[in-house]
């Protein structure tokens, strides 16, 4: 259950829109189903009042949308950012991906978002959801109303939330939190401790499900290239659809590598994956390696920081030594 309510956000959006601070509002609207929330741009008070929604399924990270939207727009756009979104926001600013002057950012405290897959695993035939203080009450086709605890459907990325601190905003709604000493690397460490054969089997099982829908790339706030290498016939790795099994593999390695040092660990890739591949485990591996090899680094914690892969020290460890380090951990 979110402490900030839909009504509060609508009031804020309408206020900023009507006093001319912003000319558009980036927000959420209902999709086909109650749990199926879609990002939308609102430009009138009426649209907002009719369609704007905010609930536990509003997990989408809006930072990325600013890249395209600020270019097209006259005036400012209002964006609502959850704490993890603020990191992406900063990272994009570091990379000069949008004009800060054209954005009015409102940071909102977050209680953690729900994972629709977890919910669907619990209940079938969801008609609508009522968000009460104690739990969500799901009206279903077959079993009547089912009570579901928020904790039981909390998304993985929110269970392992790295920070409830909002690192960028023009205005803050709700309470600012702290950076959390999370257990987000435990799963990576568990994989590292496996034998290579076990790891291989694990990833073979996961990646085999990939259908190359590109959702991970399209949702990722670090993937904002003007032209993606996978779409560029001159890049040498262009493949919009996989021609063979290996290219699948290439896609995920290259994508993870491209965002290494820039990924804020917002978890959008795993959220949007229709095949539920734990893609965040690839990104977290890079983050964990970077933290251990080159010192703690959180992309997006501040604007203008130097990403670890465009930096060096003379005493860096040798490529052959990353394994020894891993072995010690194991």
């Amino acid at each position, binding site marked *: 259950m979110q402490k900030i309510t839909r009504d509060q956000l609508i009031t804020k959006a309408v206020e900023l829109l009507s006093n001319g601070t912003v000319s558009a509002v980036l927000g959420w609207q209902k999709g086909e189903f109650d749990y199926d929330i879609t990002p939308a741009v609102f430009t009138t008070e009426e649209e907002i009042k009719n369609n704007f929604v905010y609930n536990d399924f509003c997990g989408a990270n809006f930072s990325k949308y600013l890249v395209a939207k600020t270019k097209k727009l006259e005036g400012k756009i209002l964006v609502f950012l959850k704490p993890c979104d603020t990191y992406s926001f900063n990272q994009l600013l570091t990379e000069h991906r949008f004009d800060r002057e054209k954005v009015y950012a409102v940071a909102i405290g977050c209680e953690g978002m729900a994972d629709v897959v977890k919910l669907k695993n619990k209940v079938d035939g969801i008609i609508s959801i009522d968000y009460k203080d104690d739990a969500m009450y799901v009206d279903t086709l077959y079993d009547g109303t089912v009570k579901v605890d928020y904790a039981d459907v909390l998304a993985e990325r929110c269970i392992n939330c790295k920070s409830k601190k909002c690192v960028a905003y023009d205005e803050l709604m709700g309470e600012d939190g702290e950076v959390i000493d999370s257990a987000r690397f435990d799963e990576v460490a568990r994989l590292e401790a496996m034998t290579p054969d076990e790891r291989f089997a694990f990833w073979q099982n996961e990646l085999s499900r990939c259908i190359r829908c590109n959702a991970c790339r399209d949702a990722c706030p670090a993937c904002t290239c*003007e032209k993606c290498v996978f779409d560029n016939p001159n890049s040498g790795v262009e493949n919009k659809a996989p021609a063979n099994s290996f290219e699948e593999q290439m896609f995920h390695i290259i994508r993870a590598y491209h965002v290494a040092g820039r990924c804020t660990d917002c978890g959008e890739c795993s959220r949007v994956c229709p095949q539920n591949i734990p893609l965040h485990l690839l990104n977290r591996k890079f983050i964990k390696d970077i933290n251990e090899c080159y010192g703690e680094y959180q992309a997006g914690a501040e604007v203008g920081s130097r990403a670890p892969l465009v*930096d060096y020290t003379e005493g860096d460890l040798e490529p052959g030594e990353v394994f020894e380090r891993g072995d010690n951990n194991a």
Partner: protein
Amino acid sequence: MQRIGVFVCWCGSNIAGTVDVKAVAEALKAEPGVVYSTDYQYMCSQAGQNLIIDAVKEHNLTGLVICSCSPRMHEATFRKTAAAAGLNPYMVEIANIREQCSWVHKEMPVGTEKAIILGKAAVAKVNLNTPLTPGESPVTKRALVIGGGIAGIQTALDIADAGFPVDIVETKPTIGGKMAQLDKTFPTLDCAACILTPKMVDVAQHEKIRIFSYSEVTDVKGFVGNFDVTIKKKARFVDETKCTGCGDCVDKCPMKKNPNEFNMGMDNRSAIYIPFAQAVPKVATIDAGACTMLKKGKCGLCSKVCGAGAIDYTQKDEFIEEKYGAIVVATGFNPISMDKFDEYAYNQSKDVITSLEFERLTNAAGPTQGKLLRPSDGKHPHKIVFVQCVGSRCAACAEKGKEYCSKICCMYTAKHAMLTRDKYPDTEVYVFYIDVRTPGKNFDEFYRRAVEEYGVNYIKGMVGKIVPEGDVLKVQASDLISNKQLHIDADLVVLAAAIEPDKSARPLATMLTASMDTNDFFTEAHPKLRPVESPTAGVFLSGACQGPKDIPETVSQAGAAASKVIGLLCKDKLTGNPCIASANEMMCNGCSSCERVCPYGAITYSDKEFRMPDRTTQIRRVASVNPAVCQGCGACTVACPSGAMDLRGFANNQIMAEVDAICK
């Protein structure tokens, strides 16, 4: 589609001995784009080049693949050939089938198979080559010489005589280097000072030469023709422009007990000092670690006696920034430390000395005014043992000695032995040697004279240990020819210590991005054909910083380096390497990743307006590369997430094509 010609060189039997060149030419005929393929004995010969030119004309070739020796050897040659045939020189690719194929593989089928694959990779690359035109950059017509020994002096004089301004940076208070410390020089026995000091005066008086003594280079930026160098002039607490070098301050200074570096610590100097009488610049320097005025604020005598008012206790290190077109490294050498050679008792007895100390002992300006006296008791030694190869040719322990031959020791030891016998015929002189190495004009004759005319005892064998006992040194050695172990009671032992590059060379090499070998000698661009150039363009090597050298060799290398520098400075513009990075603005995200990794600061960003497909305009921040500054490393191409940054001549798709051709 390209029309590619493939030319397979036999290189006599160098390639044809292990690679079936005809089969290679035949196999490559089938590759896409290839319209002509042939083989020839020596492609690099005039006849071979003519063959290429004719083929280009006859078959309308647009690209060339030469299967031959390393591109490091003849890429430039074949690019010129292409230009002569009317092609863009960068439409040539070399498949290295000699150094990386025929010379490392023994069996014909293996070598042939690999040569074909290497050829295929080159063909795949040429298919994607585009004509490239080099950019131009201006040349700053001033040279920097780092090191003021005989190498630096000669280089500076030669460059300056050609009319270009030269700056010499020397860490010591005076130029002159090791040669200034020597007594006589082999094989003619000229007095070192008599031939060096006039040159030092020439340097001082040359209107084109500036001397930064007591200074060091702290930063080097830029590239050939355009180096930006920061020089630190260390505070010497004496105003160089006022000091007349009269020496009154030196006489009056009460702090007289400081080891005199110039005399290898065998006597003392005062805290304010002029290293030696002919020093250039002849200016006093205060040793800040020894001066009580600087340490405790008490004394100030030198300031009081200085008629010129040159003493300035408040002087600070000064940083000078200057632009240079070329840099010559002449950092020279030092004898290695004898601390690890316990067997020779260097640290136990004052009468075990190094050869450089011996030079000072026999030098008329040295601590004994040229009289050969034992450092311990000032008595005349009657039995002297010289030990050769101390620390040279020592492969057993890298911390102790050097694996290489120090080259100069055989000759100077012969000189020392001869001069000793000449001045003091009552002295017995023994030289223990492993080999006597005397290649050089009049060198062997010189050594033989020492033996035949002067009666020096040359003994084939090494000294095993030296034990000081009473006032003699018990020397135990082997005489391999007579198969005996010798025991000699010597009065003085002289160790021919190995030489090593100056310690300043390593950090300097890093600043210059010039490469070094494992012994910290600078690497030359080519060991035979480009011996005075560093692989880093615009950086030249002079003297012992490149390898052990005697004076005649050093001077000739100094002159050679100077002529290379003059050749560079004569040019008004340099044509750059066209294989540089460039950004595709349509794909650039403006993320600054490339800017952060560029070691040359060649990348800048600006906002540009773009017309979009939907007829709107967009302002985007995009990267651009300064072609005069970019050196073509390619760091930016990998840092770029979108692949907007690419490297001409080594483009993403070209390297991918090579990978594909090899992995096919």
